[in-house]
Structure formats: C-alpha cells, structure tokens
C-alpha cells in the first residue's frame, strides 16, 4: 500500500512541477539554513569531556573584594599566592594549575629558522585528570613537580613536526634557550571547546604543542602568554614582586568524585578565604565558587552570541518555510477534490485518503531533505565566510548531520501535511460527484 501511495504521490507531484519545486525548495532552504547554523552551534556548545565533566571543577576565590571583583563574581583565575596555597593543601582527589606559555623552538635540520610554539605550563595531575592519551611515555609524577624537574610532554603533532614522529621519550628539546627532558608524547587530544584554558585563551584556537612542568616554567620566569588580570595600582616591578601581587593568571582545576567531596571542597575554599580575612589579607568575607565543566563554559560565555542568534533566526526561517509548505500542500491537495471524491465513492476510507496524502508529503519532504543536504554541503564550505575562522573549521558534515537533515526534513513536511491531508480526507464524495 505504501509503495502504491508513493507512486500516486510522485505522479501527482509531477503533475504540478512548479508547485512541487516551490515546496521542495522551501523545505530545502529551510532545513539547510537550520543545519548549517546548528552544525556550528553543536561544535561550540558541545561537552568537551563528556565522561568526566561533572567531576572536574574550577575553584574560584574572591581575592579582589567587592569593590574590584567582576560585579560580585570572584576572578576566574588564581593569583600566585592563592594558587600555591590551595594546591599545597591537597584537598581534592587530583588538582592542577596551568597557564599558557609561548616559546620558540629550533627544528633539527641545519638551515631551518626558529618556530614559535605554544603550550601550557601544568602540574603532573593534569594528564590523568583530563585523561590525556599517550603515544609514548607518560606524564610526570608529583615528586617531579616537587623536584622542579625540567620535564616536558610533547603533542603528537609537534613531535611529528620536530622529530618526524619518532619515540622521543628520554631525549632533550630546547625551548626558548632552555633544555627540557621529553617524558611523554601525547596522542592527538584537543577537546573543543578547550575548557581547561577558556579563562585565558580563545576556546577554539589551534591545539597546543607541548605541556611543560609548571614549577620549572616558574623557575625560568616564563610569564603567561595569556591573560594577566590585576586590580588597583600596579606597584610591582619584576618577577618576584609580580608573583606576590593581586594579579590573577593561574588557572586551577580540581577533580572531585562524589557530591560529598564537592561539599567538603567548597567548605575548604570558604575556610581558606575566611582565614585570609582573619590574617588581614582579605578585607571582606569569603566569596567562593566551585563550578563543573559545563557550568564553567556557560559562565565564561564560550558559545559566541553569533552562533545562538543565527541558529534562532535560521530556525524561524525554517518555521516560515513550513508555514509556506502547509499553504502550498493545501492548495495542491484541494485542487484534487474531484479525484478524492471519486476515490471515496469507490470505497476508499477517510483513513486511506489521509495516509495517501501524508505519504505524498513525505516524498516532498525526502526531496526537500535531499536538496537541503546538497545546500548544507555547499553551505559548509562557505561557513568560513560567516563565522570566525577558528570556529568555522569546527563545523563539518558528518553522518549524524546527514541523517538529521533528512529526518528533520521528512518529519517537518509530514507534520506540515497533517492539516492539508485532513482537509483532503474531509472531502464529501457526494458534493464532488454532483458538481462533476
């Protein structure tokens, strides 16, 4: 029966090529606009570390006070003093501090020129807590952190560029004039958005080249290549005074496995801030936050407003295309009132008429989905015109998007056909036969 209805539907669609084309185009454009903007939104709003996002938290402590904080919100990073105190307290299952650094490296062939390399200074827990996969070797231990070892982990991409992808564990690399020992090579790992550094860096920039041991980077007075945010008069001069200043630049993360751990850690932060008030460092009551990954991304407004607005507008556009389709289907179906009358008189039930027209609509939906898919594919190559290059490169047409495009197109068209098909099924056979 379905095949027969489909055949009838296609024959009827061929009878009014103009009307059919119009409907297919409306569905196609509508679904393509929605899918293109959705693909970008999906890329920027996704969960970068789905299996652990509710166990990873950013602690925040108000080290600036109510007059200088960000409208009641504590700063999004730690000053050196708070960072060192909190990390040394070891109150979480795992904890890390990190900040972005930009160094230079000299590739190993003789007449090459230096290249700029970007990475993060991190502590050893960074690798297990963020589940960084390793190709060779491993991260480093807490004792390496304490010993301020010159350890570095390279990313697979950087190891490929510098050493042709060889197992370089145990070898040395010179970065900005200082030697580091390679302890591991990480497999490709680039969570997007880059949740762990969004306070400092763009969430969608190029993947890092390396991770160096934080204490070593501090010993070498490597300053942050990212954000450094200070309050009040900047009276410091030089590295040591800067470390003691109220400038925030170190991004802390903690891993907390259970909700009681979270509650306990929150109490610890409050206790720490209260202690700072008691000793006179803070002149205000404790004001702390503890947000998990998704709450943090939300707080940092990682999804660009452009992406949301364009998705809203594209969805409205699709809605209008559907209203348009309802009208056109109505016109199309009612034009065939006579034919319906004959079929009803010959014994077809309302239900069968209804089913027949829904199948016809589904055929339109399928064609619209096909066109939509084509337009989406074309649109994907033009996404670079519409969004920032860093964001545009994240949008891609994958299997799930293809499926979604077709399903949305068909379902939306069938939904749009409910009313016109119902009207068609209501045709009174006697009336039609009489007027004939």
């Amino acid at each position, binding site marked *: 029966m379905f095949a027969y209805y489909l055949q009838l539907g296609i024959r009827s669609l061929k009878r009014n090529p103009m009307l059919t084309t119009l409907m297919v185009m409306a569905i196609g454009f509508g679904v393509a606009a929605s899918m293109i903007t959705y693909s970008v939104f999906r890329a920027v709003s996704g969960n970068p570390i789905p299996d652990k996002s509710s166990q990873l938290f950013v602690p925040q402590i108000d080290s600036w006070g109510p007059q200088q904080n960000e409208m009641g919100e504590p700063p999004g990073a730690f000053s050196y003093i708070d960072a060192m105190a909190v990390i040394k307290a070891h109150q979480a299952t795992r904890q890390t501090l990190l900040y972005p650094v930009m160094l230079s490296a000299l590739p190993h062939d003789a007449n090459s020129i230096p*290249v700029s390399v970007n990475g993060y200074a991190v502590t050893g827990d960074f690798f297990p807590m963020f589940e960084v996969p390793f190709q060779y070797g491993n991260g480093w231990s807490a004792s390496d952190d304490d010993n301020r070892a010159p350890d570095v982990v390279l990313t697979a991409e950087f190891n490929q560029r510098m050493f042709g992808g060889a197992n370089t564990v145990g070898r040395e690399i010179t970065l*900005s004039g200082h030697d580091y020992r390679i302890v591991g090579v990480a497999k490709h790992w680039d969570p997007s958005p880059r949740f762990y550094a969004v306070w400092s860096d763009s969430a969608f920039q190029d993947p890092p080249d390396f991770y160096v041991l934080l204490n070593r980077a501090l010993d070498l007075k490597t300053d942050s290549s990212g954000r450094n945010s200070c309050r*009040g008069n900047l009276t410091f001069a030089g590295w040591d005074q800067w470390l003691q200043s109220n400038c925030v630049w170190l991004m802390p993360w903690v891993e907390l496995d259970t909700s009681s751990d979270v509650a306990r850690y929150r109490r610890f932060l409050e206790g720490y801030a209260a202690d700072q008030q008691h000793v006179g460092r803070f002149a205000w009551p404790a004001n702390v936050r503890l947000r998990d990954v998704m709450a943090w991304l939300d707080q940092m407004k990682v999804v660009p407003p452009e992406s949301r607005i364009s998705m809203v507008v594209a969805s409205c556009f699709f*809605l209008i295309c559907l209203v*348009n389709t309802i*009208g*056109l289907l109505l*016109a199309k179906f009612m034009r065939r009132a006579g034919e319906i009358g004959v079929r009803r008189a010959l014994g077809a039930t309302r239900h069968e008429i209804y089913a027949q027209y829904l199948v016809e609509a589904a055929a339109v939906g399928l064609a619209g989905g096909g066109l939509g898919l084509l337009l989406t594919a074309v649109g994907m190559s033009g996404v670079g015109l519409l969004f920032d290059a860093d964001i545009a490169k994240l949008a891609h047409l994958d299997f799930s998007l293809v499926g979604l495009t077709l399903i949305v197109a068909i379902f939306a068209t069938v939904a749009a056909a409910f009313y016109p098909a119902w009207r068609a099924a209501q045709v009174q056979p006697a009336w039609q036969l009489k*007027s*004939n």
Partner: protein
Amino acid sequence: MMQIRPILAALRHHKAGTLLIALQIALTLAIVCNALFIIHQRLTHLSQPTGIDEDSLLIVQNQWAGRPAPAEVPSLLAADLDTLRKIPGVTNAYPSNTFPLSNGGIAYGIGHSPDKLKFTSDTAIYFTDENTLPTLGLKLVAGRNFRADEIGEAAGLDKIAPAVIIITHELADRLFPDGSAVGKMAYISNQPSIIIGVVERLQTPYVDSAMAQWSACSTLVPFRHLVDSTAYVVRVQPGQMADVASHVRAALYAANRMRVISAKDGVQTFAQVRATAYASDRGMAILMGAISVVLLAITAAGIVGLTSFWVGQRRKQIGVRRALGATQHDILSYFLTENLLIGFAGVVIGGVLALGLNLWLMNQFEVERLEPGYVIAGVIALLLLGQGAVLAPALRASHVPPVEATRSV
C-alpha cells in the same frame, strides 16, 4: 475599495489559506525586520573608523627566539627599525606592544587620583615613540608629540608609570570635559603623568562589544616594551604595499635569523587586520542578508502559489461576474484588494511579533532596541511584495472570459 465586503465574505470560505498567508507575512516581517536591524548594527560596528591611515600601514609581528634578556632588546629593536627603514617604499616605523583591532593588549583605568577605585575611564595602553604619530598618520589636535629623549624602557612586568602621555580626544573629554587636557595630570599608575598631547582619534585594540564603551579611549605611553614579542607598525608609500609586504619578512630574517615571524599572520596589511577583526560581524551581516532575501522570495512564491490555486478554484465565479458586467479591471482589483487586506492583517500581527522577537533577543543577547523605522520599512516592503506576487495570478484571473460561466468544470 468598494469591494471590501464581498471580499471578506469570500475569505470566510478560505479561512485556512487566508490564515496561512497572513501568518507567513507576519512571521516574515518579524524575522526580516530583526535581521535587517542586526545587519545595520553589525555594519555600524565594523565601519567604526580607527583614526589611523589604514591604507598605508603594514603590521609585522616578531618574536625573538631564545628569550633575550630585557637589556638586549633595545639594540635588537633598533637594528630591526633600521632594517625596516632601509626597505624601499617604507617611510616610517615604530615598535609597539599592540595595534588597533589586534584584539590583544594592555588596558588600565585612568583617572584624577592614584586611587584605582575611582578611575574615570578604562583606556588601552599603546607603547609608542616619537615616530608613532607620523607612522599612524594621527592628527594632533592639541599639544605636541613625544621627543626622542622622552622614550623610556619597560620590561615585561615593570610598572608603567610614564612622566608624559598622549591621549585621544574622546579620553581627554572624559577626563577634562572643559577641553583643557594638555598640561594637566592624569593617573594610570600611582604616579601622575602629564598629558602633553591630544590626538583626534585612535581606536583601542579591542573590538569586543564588552569594551565598546571605551573603544576610542587610548593612551600613548613613551616606552619601548622589552619583551619577546613586538609588533612593528610600518608605514608604506602609496602603491608599494604589495612589494614591501612580500619583502619585509626576508629582509628581517637576513638581518637576524634568531626570530619568528609567523608565515601565516606574521606580516599583515592593515586591510587584513581589519578583515580578521570583524570576521564575525561581516559573517552575521552576510547570513542575515541571505536569510532575508531567501525568506522574501519564498514568501512571495507562497503567495503566488496560493493565489493561483484560488484563481483556479474560482474560474467559474469569475466568469459569472464577468458575464454580469464586471470589467477586467474589477477582477484585477478584487484580487489585489484581497491580498492587501490579508497583508494588513499579517503586518499588524507581524509588527507585534517583530517587537516581541526583538525584546527576546535584547534579553538573551547584546542586541539593541529595534528602531521603528525598520518595522515601517518592513511593513511597506511586505505589502508591496504581496501586491507584486499576487499580480500575475490576478492578471490571469482578469483574463478569464465571461463564457467560463457557462462551462461546467
């Protein structure tokens, strides 16, 4: 217009179709108004003048390899400036921490006292020297430029406490509304700086809307920044830009190999800087424009489709009216008036929807209140679009011969 009553009576028999056209017009109006307004907002944002001679400027971003000590940096910078000035076509250059639209830099509070809780305005800090004004082509509206002997040095984490500064007109207005900024003191650190000059306009490095409030509030400090990374702002003679842009990288490497000038964006003309800075604004404008155009086309096509259907359905009635003495013009104006009535209903609902959508966007995003002009323009455009779309089927209707009345089917 005397036909309104029979038209309304006839529309009552086509409730669904009437409603659908009205709804489509309403939704289209709501979306198109807001889309056009967003386009307007974005274009306003991206066409803000930086105040500099953009056509003649080239930006070279340099990073020293091997972390030179701060004390070594001045001679490295001097050598580079010398190299740059020797390139044919280059007329001037200066080193800085940043440049307009770069989206990165240093921002301070500036005010009348060292107390930072009471600063007057945020301001972007540009590290500059005596060549900055002529290189950027800034117009000095009061006071004087820096002298070569005033240019100091500041290492990466040193405090920035200049004895003299040059500020923009906008910032001078905020600090000294009576217009007498030159010679006065202002605080960007805990020590006073004397304002020696005021330039007409110089945009900050930031294009983010969160910093739009002070996008024209820049402060020039007479310092060399003794850090790894430097942006050279290079002024090029008219017509030589492509030449200089393609040679500058090689020239600098020939003078000193221990550096990184990114092959991707190490050398950029200011036009490229501008294109990158406003990429998302431009993209939004393009997307909203494309959606508006397609939307209007689809709405027009929808009206054509539904009206054609009505005409086909009513051929017999039209024939009867023609046989009873209605002229072709009467039939034409019947369909045009019918569409106009539906259109009016649509734009009234659409106007309300447009304002509603705008309110929602204002709540959720940084969108401003919709200007009424956009709604009015949208209403007129959609009514005209409706009339244009209905014209072809209406003309066809008017050509139905009276003899149609006598035919069955």
